[in-house]
């Protein structure tokens, strides 16, 4: 059984990393990053078998693709804390000559990143390509992909959803960050997603739901999702999260989607997040 306390402790540090990266960069996307922290912590520190000695092809290891690339401060913290690159490098987030681009990229060779993302709607297709290659190679490992909920407004998502069901891609697990908000407001106001479970179900997917900010639920649901392997359907987990989770003044609003905290706000946020693994050193300037 997973050590939930340990995972929560890691998630605390990751949330500190998110707040501090965006503060030092004076920009970035803390809200969605904080909301998805428990998921990525569970994936990288409990669920996935993966190798921080980075191999682009990901042979015989589980793979994760981040489609909603704007939550890069979360992705970078998770990769650094998993050993893909030095934690100190988090101080370079969004700065000139950094491997930690505003949105994840392979261009600078950052270990752990296999595809550029940022322009939304593309990651699910890429994940399908990797999952299909694993099928061709008789590789038993799984492929995971995370998308935003607003991202589901992109047509390519549904092209991919149709493909994955048609080809019975049961080595694919997609998680939707269902926080209900996007840049311009709530999904409901901007472009209603309608009955999301029914939509995925109608596309031929196995549909699960979980509370993405309850580590126990996250771990149990992901373990259960893996059991879909061999059953002929891709799995989607509709993950309820709260944007900004873990920092009280960032919750309950979409204001923190793409805004960095100032010094005072950062200090206030960090008092709510215990330093468990040691902060990365502050950048020089």
């Amino acid at each position, binding site marked *: 059984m997973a050590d939930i306390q340990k995972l929560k402790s890691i998630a605390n540090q990751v949330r500190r990393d998110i707040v501090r990266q965006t503060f030092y960069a004076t920009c970035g996307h803390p809200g969605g990053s904080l909301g998805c922290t428990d998921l990525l912590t569970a994936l990288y520190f409990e669920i996935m078998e993966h190798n921080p000695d980075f191999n*682009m*092809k*990901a*042979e015989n290891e589980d793979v994760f*693709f981040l489609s909603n690339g704007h939550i890069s401060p979360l992705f970078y913290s998770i990769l650094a804390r998993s050993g893909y690159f030095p934690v100190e490098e988090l101080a370079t987030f969004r700065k000139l000559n950094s491997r930690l681009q505003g949105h994840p*990229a*392979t*261009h600078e060779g950052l270990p752990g990143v*296999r*595809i*550029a*993302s*940022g*322009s939304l*709607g*593309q*990651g*699910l*297709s*890429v*994940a*399908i*390509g*990797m*999952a*299909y*290659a*694993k099928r*061709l*190679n008789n590789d038993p490992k799984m492929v995971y992909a995370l998308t935003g909920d607003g991202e589901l407004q992109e*047509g*390519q998502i549904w*092209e*991919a959803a*149709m*493909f994955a069901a*048609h*080809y019975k891609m049961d080595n694919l697990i997609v998680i939707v960050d269902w926080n209900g908000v996007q840049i311009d407001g709530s999904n409901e106001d901007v472009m209603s997603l309608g009955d999301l479970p029914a939509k995925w179900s109608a596309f031929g997917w196995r549909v699960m739901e979980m509370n993405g900010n309850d580590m126990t639920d996250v771990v149990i649901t992901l373990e259960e999702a893996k059991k879909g392997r061999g059953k002929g359907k891709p799995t989607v987990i509709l993950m309820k999260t709260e944007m900004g989770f873990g920092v009280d003044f960032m919750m309950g609003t979409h204001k923190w989607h793409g805004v960095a905290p100032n010094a005072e706000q950062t200090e206030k946020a960090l008092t709510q997040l215990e330093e468990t693994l040691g902060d990365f050193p502050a950048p020089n300037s």
Partner: protein
Amino acid sequence: MLSNYIQTDKKATRDGFGAGVYELGQSNPEVVTLCADLVGSLKIQKFIDEFPERFFQVGIAEANMMGIAAGLATAGKIPFTSTFANFSTGRVYDQIRQSIAYSHKNVKICASHAGLTLGEDGATHQILEDVGMMKMLPGMTVINPCDYNQTKEATIAIAKHHGPVYLRFGRPGWPVFMPEGSFEIGKGIQMNEGTDVSIVATGHMVWYAVEAARKLEESGVSVDLINIHTIKPLDEEIILNSVARTNCIVVAEEHQRLGGLGESIAGVLAKNNPTPMEFVAVNDTFGESGKPSDLLEKYGLSIADINSAAQRVIARK
């Protein structure tokens, strides 16, 4: 020597792609093909029959096809996407830009029915901007072969080249005239040496350039004729050596002037050796329905157009 280039057959360049990809199926187990509901048009049925597990029918969903290709390439496969040129570029430009070009994926974007010679389907499908779009992407190799033989050889060659490639070919039956074994990525082909005018052509227009050169030579004009299949990276040396001999140049292509091969060559010449130049290309307009040869004539891409462009540019020396 012009006399080396004689029509031996008439076949579509897309058939050359189909034959090339079938050979790759036999020789390289990492090669996989994808198609967006145009298997018959892309001539890949033989590959599918023999290697069904390495073919992905994605349906009418080109954006998804590009993303899946990027994922397959990440895992070490060599994906060849196949659909019409219009749906291979403009429709999926952002997918190619982010998931393939910027991400350095080894994807081969194979595009048929490019240009006016698509014919009767009309301007919705006659893309004339694709070379421009694709050559602007950092790291993208752009190849526009001229006949069946060259297309088949290019198809096989790009599997050995690591990196994203745009391979552009066409629909109609077209003269087969290139000797086998003459294709090398990035290396232009000197088809004839001359001193009065350089004629550089790509794609279907190479055959028209050969025919134009024959007529010009008959009338006493010495033509330096170059076949440029690889538009990017451009063989600058062969161009510069040619204009050093002739001091003027005509570029012929089945594409918009803006963004095409002519524009690339103009940039090379402006920097290294400013030279009088004429463009035989579509001039900022869409095409229309019609027979390929009639369309080429109406839009200024006939053999006679190359001929008169040569006369004009010689007069400007």
